[in-house]
């Protein structure tokens, strides 16, 4: 190496990949192209098309509700038969999601410990996730219907004089939402819990904290962001309830949920534009709740929980 010291001359010897990387180009990103094409064709285009539909109301809608191209939105907010479905859906989805999350916490706490039969119990709790909503609804009708086992057994032993009305109403849909939503919430919360270092609880013990204080002061604050996430996911699942609202609910009465309204506009009235409007508003309501919960979550501690998770 005699000659001009330090000065670099001639062509760079770095590979093409390195030279592209210097300019901020990563060729592996090209692998995303097929996925992007599919997403554009099957999601972005139909979604935009749907939004476009909402501002092309039918002549009948324009005449009935006015508002020009926004007639569908006017109808959504003014027509109590449609707008009440927001409240009816909330009335189902909020308590169902809340119950699923809150009931999962103690169960997941107990199932952290090692004991005989734990595997069996966990399997039983998670099993309903493998049943479809339709199967669940079918089972509920047979089990809890007027002539179902529950009612017959209760009548037989004389606890009740008349069969309880457990299905084809609000209660039936609620049962179905809990049966399908609970395993989901339980699995999520279990994994959040296992992410909390067990030695934190042991440390709290040696510092004199009883079980409630350990839960209140240590476990709960560390679990809270996970609870919020679980709540959001189970809420969205419950909010878009459709089959059970129809099968074990009171489809034109107290379980007249938004998805049923959208389906009615689409399937019975052939009004695609109104159906799209209802679907879009459904998304908007979900988004509002999700934003509110995640907003609250951002106020909480969200760092490490010390464990393997």
């Amino acid at each position, binding site marked *: 190496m005699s000659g001009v010291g330090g000065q670099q001359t001639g062509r760079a010897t770095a590979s093409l990949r390195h030279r592209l990387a210097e300019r901020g180009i990563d060729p592996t990103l090209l692998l995303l192209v097929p996925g992007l094409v599919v997403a554009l064709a099957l999601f972005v285009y139909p979604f935009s098309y749907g939004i476009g539909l909402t501002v092309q109301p039918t002549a009948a809608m324009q005449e009935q509700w006015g508002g020009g191209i926004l007639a569908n939105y006017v109808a959504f907010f003014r027509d109590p038969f449609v707008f009440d479905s927001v409240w009816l859906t909330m009335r189902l989805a909020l308590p169902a999601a809340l119950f699923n999350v809150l009931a999962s916490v103690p169960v997941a706490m107990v199932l952290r410990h090692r004991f005989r039969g734990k595997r069996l119990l966990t399997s039983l709790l998670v099993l309903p996730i493998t049943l479809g909503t339709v199967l669940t609804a079918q089972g509920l009708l047979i089990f809890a219907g007027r002539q179902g086992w529950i009612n017959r057994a209760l009548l037989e032993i004389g606890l009740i004089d008349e069969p309880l009305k457990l299905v084809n109403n609000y209660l039936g849909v609620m049962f179905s939402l809990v049966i399908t939503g609970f395993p989901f919430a339980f699995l999520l919360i279990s994994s959040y819990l296992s992410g909390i270092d067990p030695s934190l609880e042991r*440390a709290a013990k040696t510092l004199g904290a009883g079980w409630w204080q350990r839960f209140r002061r240590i476990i709960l604050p560390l679990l809270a962001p996970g609870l919020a996430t679980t709540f959001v996911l189970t809420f969205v699942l419950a909010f878009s309830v459709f089959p059970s609202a129809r099968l074990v609910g009171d489809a034109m009465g107290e379980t007249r949920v938004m998805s049923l309204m959208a389906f009615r506009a689409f399937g019975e009235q052939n009004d695609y534009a109104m159906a799209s409007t209802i679907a879009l508003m459904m998304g908007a309501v979900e988004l509002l709740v999700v934003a509110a919960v995640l907003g609250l979550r951002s106020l909480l*501690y969200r760092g490490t929980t*010390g464990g393997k998770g």
Partner: protein
Amino acid sequence: MSDFDSLELRGVGRRFGGVDALSGLDLTIKSGEFVALLGPSGCGKSTALNCLAGLLPLTHGEILLDGKRIDTLPPERRGFGMVFQSYALFPHLSVEKNVAFGLQMQGRPRAEIESRVREAIKLVKLDEHAKKLPGQLSGGQQQRVAIARAVVLEPSLVLMDEPLSNLDAKLRLDMRTEIRRLHQSLGLTTIYVTHDQEEALSLADRLVVMREGRVQQVGTPDELYESPTSWYVADFMGYRNILPATVVSVSGGEAVVQLPGTADGGARLTGSAVGVLSAGDSVRVAIRPDDFVVAQDPPGSAGAGTVPGTVPGTVSVVEYHGREHAVGVQTGDTMLHARTPVAPQVGGSVWLTAPVERVLVFPDSLDAVVPVEVAA
């Protein structure tokens, strides 16, 4: 400051699915004492600590505090402070709030909590970091918070579970000094679990060496360092050369042994017998590297072959250690470790000798050794 006279463990044992993790632990700890439980992983030392803390129920024996049974109390009612290997700081609470946690659990008045927390944080020199979350601190700082959190309650007993094992070598030395300083200034009775004999020797007033769930030897650091009762303890006390050998003859506390793998009449050593030995016994010979004298010329008359008490060998490794060199000497099948100020040539011949009183000859079997608790 500790508010008791003695803590007594009587036949404490713990079984996990038919296996004894800890058995027959008898130990009496006086107020203000610093006791180290020393042993390799799986020897039961952490089990013993967890049993004391109440985090593991005992399967045998009892724990008495001034004659009152405490092993049936839940951990939150024992009032012992514990420092965990993983620190176990509450990640969502600031340093201050971590330290205040135990006082809040005791329902102390706010003003008292504030002043005691401030004092404890000052004690571990973290004043500037009081408002930070544990995640923003270095490992050593986190460990200091864990210590402050345990000592702020002025517990009757502080339990430390390998508190320094997650720190790097230099920090470990600093923290060791720190723990010693805290113990000397606060006088808190401490039980300290470690697998590092240097840590145990430098910190503790008394050491408990454990093996397979049982106590092997109990004594003060210099008792254990100078007169281990088994080769297992010797191994922990810096006797790096633990050599299997056979007794050739015994006379008046001195035993002549022959190392295996050397020619008949070859490497023979004379050492002090620990325990009862007779000719033909299998033994282990323990010698510290610094007790060997490394000679580069053959002892006695040149070319006279081997001399009793001298081990000839070939230098295979030389490491620079500052003032000295660590030398690995191959003799027969065994590698001997020695230290010498002058570095010999790798591949050259050397002759190792060691004073009789520095060569300890132990029976091969460990189970024969009866642990003796030295009255402290």
